[in-house]
């Protein structure tokens, strides 16, 4: 998988005894990460802009002002989580007011392309820390528009439309519709597998709950309207 590491290990093994060798700190050289399926960079083009095309919210019926965490490739998990956890747990000490007693009810994590894994990790960390969160996961393709500019002449410009997989994860303190595809009840971390090994009675019992009439939503809307803004966290 990582030929760089392997070759380094060989060098180490070749050194005599390992005693008194000039122990150059064996830091792997920064791995060149070639952008997958993109050769433009080598042909004298550089990317000048990348915009995600607006797509409708994957969670219809969601309060419009809900906190949306847009996870990017370079986002630091500690920054994202520091911000999101503070909002979900309620910011105590900010101007002395505990906002709406216990923070926001819902948060959405979205990410596309190479940020998908990080997005899931954020949601998993939050589920573990907050507990009792209902989850709804949606997958789809997102169209990304990239503008590439020639590095030589500076005259030619190219626009590339790419479709990248993206994920949106809604975490909610209030119950969600269990019939919605991609729903996950709280604390399924370990139960996920046992439920599947048994043949379907678990889902049958879930079905019997029937469509959930979103009773708790008006309440949450009130909370979110004052609070929620779509925020781009600091990178």
């Amino acid at each position: 998988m990582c030929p760089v590491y392997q070759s380094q290990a060989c060098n180490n093994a070749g050194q005599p005894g390992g005693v008194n060798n000039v122990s150059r700190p064996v830091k792997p050289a920064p791995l060149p990460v070639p952008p997958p399926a993109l050769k433009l960079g080598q042909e004298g083009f550089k990317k000048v802009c990348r915009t995600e095309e607006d797509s409708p919210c994957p969670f219809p019926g969601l309060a419009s002002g809900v906190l949306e965490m847009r996870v990017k490739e370079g986002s630091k998990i500690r920054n994202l989580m520091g911000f999101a956890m503070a909002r979900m747990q309620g910011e105590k000490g900010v101007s002395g007011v505990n906002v709406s007693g216990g923070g926001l009810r819902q948060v959405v994590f979205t990410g596309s392309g190479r940020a998908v894994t990080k997005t899931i990790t954020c949601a998993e960390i939050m589920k573990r820390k907050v507990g009792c969160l209902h989850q709804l996961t949606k997958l789809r393709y997102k169209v990304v528009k990239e503008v590439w500019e020639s590095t030589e002449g500076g005259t030619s410009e190219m626009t590339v439309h790419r479709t990248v997989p993206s994920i949106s994860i809604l975490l909610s303190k209030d119950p969600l519709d269990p019939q919605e595809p991609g729903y996950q009840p709280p604390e399924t971390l370990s139960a996920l597998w046992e439920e599947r090994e048994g043949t379907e009675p678990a889902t049958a019992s879930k079905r019997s709950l029937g469509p959930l009439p979103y009773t708790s939503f008006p309440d949450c809307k009130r909370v979110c309207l004052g609070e929620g803004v779509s925020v781009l966290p600091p990178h």
Partner: protein
Amino acid sequence: MTEPRNPSMSSIPQTGPAHTDSSSPAVEMDPVEYTLRKRLPRKLPKRRNDVYVNMKTDFRAQLARCQKLLEGGGHREICVHGLGLAINRAINIALQLQASSQGALQLAANTSTVELVDDLEPEDPDEAGEPMTRTRNNSAIHIKVFYPDPQ
């Protein structure tokens, strides 16, 4: 899966013959070099309609395998699993299946955390290093790709 590499703790520029470190309790760090070995993830259920996506097999081969299960295999639903870096590929496969079905297929994704174990083996058996294990977490995705029941 067994690429040897040096954990960051191993690159301490502490020279001198071996076996002297035990007499210097002030140095908390461990000069012994370890080989990191990643164990395989915990065994997970493997039914006929479970597909575990990896990054070694060709993408198209894995996609074709899923298509075969749904079309030729007579399964009404399959489960596509991806761990870590393979999450992206699992999502891609699921979305490709859905797109090529002209909307007949639906997706239901769940996420989870998988605990992984690494073994740290001392490079030099003469040194006083003890074999160690270390656990870490990685994210995983489980996508159910299914034909919805007619209602």
